[in-house]
């Protein structure tokens, strides 16, 4: 009898995993504030994040073969009730978000002590937990309006987190404010688009919308909705001309926040873009095909070159990485706009691989900042000798950013080139490799600075604390590991791509 009861509990537990995925961090956030203890708040945040990570692994294991979990909140059946829907695409994104947050939190502990006054620590962790919650909610929900709600939760907490950088540099406040304005415009565009869809279809459940749009055929309101949604999400993704908020936000936010945002926030936004362009609207929707081919693709290519060029001429390591992120988002958009299975696989794999790559690099910057007080190139000269472990990890991250074989970055570059050759878009494949060469230049500027210059001024002989080095090296080794063992990344991205290309059918 007892065994049966345990089994029953375990069964219900498994059944409720989708909602627990969001709830754990969501409940932990107010708990942190209520307890108000600095030590406990870190512990609670870390445990909540670790539990979410475990849940994410369970969820991905269930759906990696292409199946779909549908969870009805409060037992209300969709389309009236809110539905959480887990498939390979979002399970993979959720895994990325929770994995990064679980790595970043131990790292954040020392880094935050250095960058934020102690009395704000509890609130910082609460905001951080809310940010995670928002991103997870955006990814997991199957309800269009629910996406908007969670998007706002994550955005609002992000503005707060970025502004925390103001104790080190006051410009963090303007950076956060810029992002607030742009982010709000983006969210408004998004919700206007949703409104139009609701007008046409009378429903907010994504699968339901998709079905009804299919019945509508091409309709001007649907097209306008598509335009509004793409522009709105485009702001969050930082698609090339809509990227202006990103460099300052990444540069002036506290190190740990930059790591988390760079590795996850834009990636989740890319996911929404994927979800809407493929699952809600039809992949065969001609208007969409044209938009992708004639608008998104050119902008993606411009981003790959323009942002890389700008990155080459930066003198601040963190800012350089921010521009490189814009260029890398270009690669993902390029993969999406190819509209083939390989192209989408490349985009989704790059989303993950670039996430861990940027995590390594930004964590490395954070460790340098802790020691030298700045991330300008003249401050970090000669650090290769003084901080050998941090610098070596930065080199690994840099190689992955370039896409050198043996690193995660290489896998996605390979897929991307393969996809463009398959499609017969020769010039595009040449452009991809050419822009990788620009990455060689900006990465090598950093490597020369770290290793071939003599350190300036007196040096404090203080290595980065282990609590920062260990997460840094976990991420760095992951960069190498996923450059060889591609089982998880490739099979997850491939079944995600297949699911997305199946369009509405994939949602059922």
């Amino acid at each position, binding site marked *: 009898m007892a065994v049966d009861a345990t089994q029953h509990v375990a069964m219900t537990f498994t059944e409720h995993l989708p909602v627990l995925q969001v709830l754990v961090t969501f409940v932990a956030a107010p708990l942190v504030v209520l307890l108000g203890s600095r030590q406990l708040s870190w512990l609670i945040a870390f445990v909540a994040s670790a539990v979410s990570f475990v849940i994410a692994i369970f969820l991905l294991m269930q759906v990696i073969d292409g199946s779909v979990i549908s969870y009805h909140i409060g037992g209300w059946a969709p389309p009236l009730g809110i539905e959480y829907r887990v498939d390979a695409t979002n399970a993979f994104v959720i895994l990325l978000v929770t994995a990064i947050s679980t790595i970043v939190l131990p790292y954040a502990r020392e880094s935050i002590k250095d960058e934020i006054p102690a009395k704000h620590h509890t609130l910082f962790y609460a905001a951080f937990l809310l940010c995670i919650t928002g991103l997870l909610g955006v990814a997991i929900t199957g309800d269009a309006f629910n996406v908007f709600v969670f998007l706002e939760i994550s955005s609002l907490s992000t503005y707060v987190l970025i502004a925390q950088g103001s104790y080190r540099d006051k410009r963090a406040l303007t950076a956060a404010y810029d992002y607030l304005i742009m982010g709000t415009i983006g969210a408004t565009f998004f919700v206007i688009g949703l409104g139009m869809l609701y007008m046409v279809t009378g429903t907010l459940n994504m699968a339901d919308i998709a079905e009804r749009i299919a019945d509508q055929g091409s309709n001007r309101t649907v097209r306008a909705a598509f335009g509004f949604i793409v522009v709105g999400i485009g702001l969050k993704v930082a698609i090339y001309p809509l990227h202006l908020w990103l460099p300052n936000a990444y540069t002036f936010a506290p190190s740990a926040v930059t790591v988390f945002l760079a590795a996850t926030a834009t990636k989740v936004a890319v996911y929404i873009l994927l979800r809407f362009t493929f699952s809600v609207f039809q992949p065969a929707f001609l208007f969409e095909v044209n938009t992708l081919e004639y608008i998104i693709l050119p902008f993606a290519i411009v981003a790959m070159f323009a942002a890389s060029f700008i990155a080459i001429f930066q003198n601040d390591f963190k800012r350089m990485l921010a521009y490189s992120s814009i260029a890398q988002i270009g690669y993902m958009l390029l993969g999406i706009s190819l509209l083939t299975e390989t192209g989408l696989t490349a985009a989704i794999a790059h989303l993950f691989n670039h996430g861990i790559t940027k995590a390594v690099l930004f964590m490395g910057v954070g460790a340098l900042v802790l020691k030298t007080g700045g991330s300008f190139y003249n401050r970090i000269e000669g650090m290769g000798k003084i901080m050998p472990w941090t610098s070596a990890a930065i080199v690994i991250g840099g190689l992955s950013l370039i896409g050198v*074989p043996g690193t995660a970055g290489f896998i996605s570059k390979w897929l991307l*080139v393969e996809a463009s*050759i*398959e499609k017969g878009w020769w010039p595009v494949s040449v452009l991809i*490799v050419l822009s990788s*060469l620009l990455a060689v230049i900006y990465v090598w500027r950093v490597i020369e600075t770290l290793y*071939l210059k003599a350190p300036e001024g007196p040096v404090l002989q203080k290595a980065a604390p282990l609590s920062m080095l260990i997460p840094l090296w976990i991420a760095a080794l992951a960069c190498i590991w996923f450059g*060889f063992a*591609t089982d998880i990344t490739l099979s997850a991205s491939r079944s995600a791509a297949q699911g997305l290309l199946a369009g509405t059918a994939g949602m059922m």
Partner: protein
Amino acid sequence: MDTNTAIFLTMVIPTGAAVTNLLFRNNPNLRDGLTLAAAVATFLCVLAILSNVGNSTTEQVQLFEVFPGLSIAFNVEPLGLMFAIIASGLWILTHLYGIGYMRGNNETHHARFFASFSLAIAAVMGIAFSANMFSLFVFYEILTVSTYPLVAHKGTPEAIKGARTYLGILIGTSIGLQLLAIIWTYTLTGTLDFTQGGILEGYIAGPMVAVLLALYAFGIGKAALMPFHRWLPAAMVAPTPVSALLHAVAVVKAGVFTMLKVGIYIFGIDFLAETGASEWLMWLAAYTIIAASIIAITKDNLKARLAYSTISQLSYITLGMALATSMGALGGGLHIAMHAMGKITLFMAAGSIYVATHKTNISQMNGLGRIMPFTYGAFFIGALSIIGLPPLGGSWSKWLLVLGAADTGQWIMIGVLMLSSLLNVYYLLSIVGRGFFLPAADQPADAKIAESPTLVWLPPALTAAGCVVLFFYAGELQEFLSPIVSGYGGEADG
């Protein structure tokens, strides 16, 4: 030891040596001793593989399946095995030489130097045993990145500039051209395995074959085909042991080795001959042979002259592949070994001159031969082998290349090879002549023998002896290599 274990060990041991170098950075004798042990152990592993060749199957070992049908996989094949034997064998000598050179010259950062060096050797072993183009490319790039710290070693503005050129050209060509070629091949054929007879036949035709070959030929920047040759002179800012092993043997030979692999196992010699796709490459290789030799004549810096000589000699091998006959490919393969032995002798001798006298320019080297007879003797023998005179190894590979050219009726190519030999005589033997016969400017005519340290002059003397030995064992080596072209209808055992 079974072959699979041995293959892994040839990569694991040098990587381990890189780690011990960094761990024991403050204990020079232990550090260098361990590396020496690693070098010997690696060489023994390669010999173990050699001894297994007859009695084991040629199955491939798979490590990771990275993409569907694409794995990091290894197998044993004559060309690769020969390359591994050369590189690991010469590593022992170069390491001894390197210890003497680095200490004798008071260079800094020994641990970083030897660690990068060991890592480069591990990458070379990976290249030699790769069972498909994908693995080869992975190790090719690891080799580029791991040799960068060696080129930038001195940290002077000149070294940084040279290292930038080095990295820029090698990464630029490999990612910009070679990677495209590889992915293109993969989308066409769905495989990248090195297969006897090539994999491309039937998937591609017409002028596109030549385009794909061009992407490969220029993409393999390490083969230093003009106009992508400038990285090699730029790399000469590195300490001489690096120039000796890496930029006369390991790195450049990795380039031409890849070139041969692509020609023989990706395109297939017959396929190249049928389509005539490699004819332009033959002319370009011929041009590189002559042009680089002429530039070498104008160089007064000894290492720069040797670098251009290397560029010229590498194109012999490319030419051998581009002739698209089995004899040419075999000659190219043989030339990898012959040139390696000759050129490492020349470079180590140049380093020996530098350690003893700190002279880098040929015009200052008058009369040095009488003071440093061992060094100059080794240099003389190495030079004769490069020129291709009997009784030295270099004569055989040139002979096969000439036969290959005659096979296809390319009489002009025979002329090119002969002209190149004459140019070699001029720019190499003039150095020897100055050393022995011209009066020294700043020394008394009866100066005593003042050789460099034993660890510095002995290794080149040994490799010079190796050049002589290779002359007598060339037949066996040729027979060993002949499976790479057997089955092409050509006479492989000429």
